[in-house]
C-alpha cells in the first residue's frame, strides 16, 4: 500500500455523515487496512459538496479528491445525492479542461454497512492517484493540456 511506504500523496475525501462516513467507520471497526493518504472531511450530505470546494482543494495542492455519499435512492435527505451526482458529473468532465487529469477526482456511493466496499474504494482510488503521481501546480503544464 503506497501510503505505508512513506510516499504519501495528498488526497482529500468529502464523505456524507450517514452513509459513507459510517461506512468508513465500519471499515475501521472491522480493521480493514487501507492506505494512509486519505484525509476525510465530514459533511452532512454529498449534496452539500459544492464543486468549487473540490476545485479549491486542487488549487490548494491536493493530488486527488474523492466524494462519497449514500447509494442513489438511499439518501438520508431523500434526494441530496441526486444533486451531488449531477453536479459532480459536470465537474468530472470539466476538470481535465482545467489541466487536472480525470483520474484525480472520483465520486462514489458507499453505505454505512459496506466497510469492505469502502476499503476497496479507498485502495483503488489511492492506487489510481499514485499511478498519476504528484500533481504539478497550475501553470506548470500537465497531462490535461498546457494552460499557460
Amino acid at each position, binding site marked *: 500500500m503506497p501510503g505505508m511506504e512513506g510516499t504519501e500523496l495528498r488526497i482529500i475525501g468529502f464523505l456524507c455523515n450517514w452513509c459513507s462516513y459510517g461506512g468508513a*467507520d465500519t471499515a475501521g471497526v472491522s*480493521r480493514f487496512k487501507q492506505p*494512509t493518504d486519505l484525509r476525510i472531511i465530514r*459533511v452532512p450530505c454529498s449534496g*452539500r459538496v459544492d464543486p468549487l470546494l473540490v476545485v479549491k482543494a486542487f488549487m490548494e495542492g491536493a493530488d486527488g479528491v474523492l466524494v462519497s455519499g449514500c447509494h442513489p435512492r438511499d439518501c438520508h*435527505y431523500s434526494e441530496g445525492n441526486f444533486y451531488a451526482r449531477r453536479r459532480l458529473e459536470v465537474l468530472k468532465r470539466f476538470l481535465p479542461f482545467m489541466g487536472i487529469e480525470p483520474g484525480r477526482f472520483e465520486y462514489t456511493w458507499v453505505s454505512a454497512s459496506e466497510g469492505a466496499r469502502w476499503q476497496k474504494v479507498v485502495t483503488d482510488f489511492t492506487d489510481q492517484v499514485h499511478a498519476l503521481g504528484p500533481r504539478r501546480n497550475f501553470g506548470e503544464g500537465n497531462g490535461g493540456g498546457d494552460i499557460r
Partner: protein
Amino acid sequence: MRIGVFVCHCGTNIDGTVDSHQVAEEAKKFPHVVYATDYLYTCSEPGQQEIQQAVGEHDLDGVVVAACSPRMHENTFRRTIERAGLNRYMFEMANIREHCSWIGEDREANTHKAIELVRMAVAKVANHVHLHPSYFEVNKRVLVIGAGVAGMQAALDCADGGLDVVLVEKKSSIGGRMAQLDKTFPTVDCSICILGPKMVDVGQHEKIKLCTYSEIEDISGYVGNYTVNIRRKATYVDWGKCTGCGLCMEKCPSKKAYDYHNEGIADTTAINISFPQAIPKKATIDPEYCRQFTKGKCGVCAKVCPLGAIDYEMEDEIVAEEVGAIIVATGYGLLNMEELGEYGAGRYPDVITGIQYERFLNASGPTQGHVVRPSDGEEPKRVVFISCAGSRDASLDRPYCSNFCCMYIAKQAILTRDHIPDSEVYVFYMDTRSPSKGYEEFIRRAQEEYGVQYVRGRVSRIYPKGKRMVVRGADTLLGTQVEVETDLVVLATAATCAPEAEELAEKLRISYDEYGFYMESHPKLRPVETNTSGVFLAGACQGPKDIPAAVGQGSAAASKVLSLFSKDQLESDPQIAQVMELRCVGCLKCADTCPFQAIEEKELPDGRVVGHVIETVCQGCGLCTSICPSGAIQLQQCTDNQLIAEVEALCQAWRERSSG
C-alpha cells in the same frame, strides 16, 4: 480564540499505532490552540473531568477531542463542555481511531495523519459560532407499520402507556407470521393460542386505530410532526357492515384463489376471511380471481350477503394521519424456493418450504393438522429437513444465517414424530445454532427423545424415484456420501427482507443493508433506533430474529417512543441553514432545491424578497448552501468558511511537510 485539544489513547486502540503524546505536542503549535494534552481514556469520567477542568483553568472557548468517530461520542463530549459552561456546539472531533489507528499499521504515517486530522478540526472550531436550539411541539401519536408480533407488542405497549396508536397492516388481518405457525419452540406452545388473545387486545384497545389491508403511500415531516398518507386498499366489502359470518365464502363459485395464509398449499375462495382467528374478522375480495372482476359477471356474494356489504365499485382510499413517531415492524420475507434449483424446489410437489409444512401441521390448516404429501395426499413415512436452504450461501449472495431455522426444524421434526409415530425424520444441517434459553436442550430432545437423525452435511441434489424423492448429500462427519429415499422434503428457506422493504425505507428515509434489512443506529448500543430521528425498528425488518427477540424489540421501540414523548416539547437541532438576508438576492433556488420545503419566501420591510428557513422543518442537509449563488444561505456547523478552513489547514500542513 482559545482552543483546547484532548488526544485520547483509547487504551492501545489509538496509542498502539498512533503516538498520541506526539499528536498533542504538535497540536500545541497550531493557531488558536492554548492547551493540548493526551489521556488514556478521554471518554471516561476522569477524562471528561479533565476537559471540564481545563476549560476553566485555561479559559477555553473551543474544544477539539481527537479520539473515535464523532458518530460514537460527539454528543458525549458536547455535554461535557456544556457542563463546563461552554456552548455545546463549540466542539469538534478528529476521528483518529476508525479513520486512522485502526486502518493502518505504520505508526509514523498514522501519527502524521492524526496530527493533520487534529489540525483540520482545530481550523474548523476556530470558525464555530454559538448555536442555540429552539423548541417545538410534539404530536403524541405513534404510527406502527406492520402488525406482526413485534408491531402488535409495540402498539400495545404504546397504547397502554397512554399514546394514541395508528397500526397499519398490509394484510387483511393482524397477526403476521406468528399467526401462520402451528407451535412455537422450545416450549411447543400453540402459537395462535398465545397470539390470539394479544390480537384481540390490539383489536379492542380503545387507543389503537387499526388500518389493515393498508399500505404506506408517503411520509413527510420530521420527528414530532410526521404526516403519513395511508392507502386503504379496496376490499370490495364494506367492513362497517360485514360481520364475518362467512356465508359469502361458502357460496363463492371461484374456489381456486391463491391462499396466502396457507402459503399456496391449498386454494381458497375469491372472497375470503384469511383465517378463523382473523382480526378484524372481515371478508375481502381478491380481484385477481373474483369472477365479477375477471369475467364481469357473477355477483353471488352480493346476493347472499345478508347485510349488503359487498361493493364491487369500491376504490382505494388515501387517509392522512398526523403522528409524532413511527415504529417500523414490517417483518421478513422468505426466499423464493425456485431459486434453489438443485433441490428441485418448485418442480417437485413433494419438496416444500418450512412455512408450508407448518400449515400442514396446523390444526386450522387445510388438512386439519394431518401431514400429507402434496403429490398424492398420502401420509409420509419419512421426512427429510434441509437447513440453510439459501442461507449461509455465498453463491446465492446470502451469506448470513437466518437465525431461527435450526430451531423450527427441531420443532417440526418433533411434531412430525408426534403426528406420525411410525415415521422417520432426517435433518441435514451445517451447524445447529441454538444459543437462547432452553434451545440447546430442545434440539437434544429432538435427537435423543424423538430419535431424529441429524446428518451433518449439505445436500447436493434431490431427484424423484418412483413415488418417492431421493436426497443425495454428504455426511461430513463420516466422510461419506449418503442417499436417503424419502416421501417428503422440507426446505428451511432463507429469511429475506420483506417484499418492498427498500421502497418503504426510501419513504421513511432510513438506511438498509445490502440484503434489504433496515439499519439500526448502532449495532450494539442503539439497536432499535434508526438514523432518522423519530423512526424506530422492531422485529425481523432489522434482521432475521425469533419471536422472543421480536417481542423484546417491540417493547424496546415502544419504550423509546414513550421516553421521546415524555416531554411536551422537543429540542430542535440548531445545525440548520441560516439566511444572511443582506446577501440574499431572492432567487429562491434554495427553496426549489430543499427536499423538505423548509425554505419560504419572506418579504423584508423594504419590499425585498429573501429566503427564510423554517427552523423546525430544516433537516440540515446543506443542499441549499451548495446551490446558493451568493453564499447567502449557510448551513451552520458546516458553512463554506468552515469547510474551506479545513481544506486550507490540511493543505497548509501538506505544504509545510513537503518544504520541511
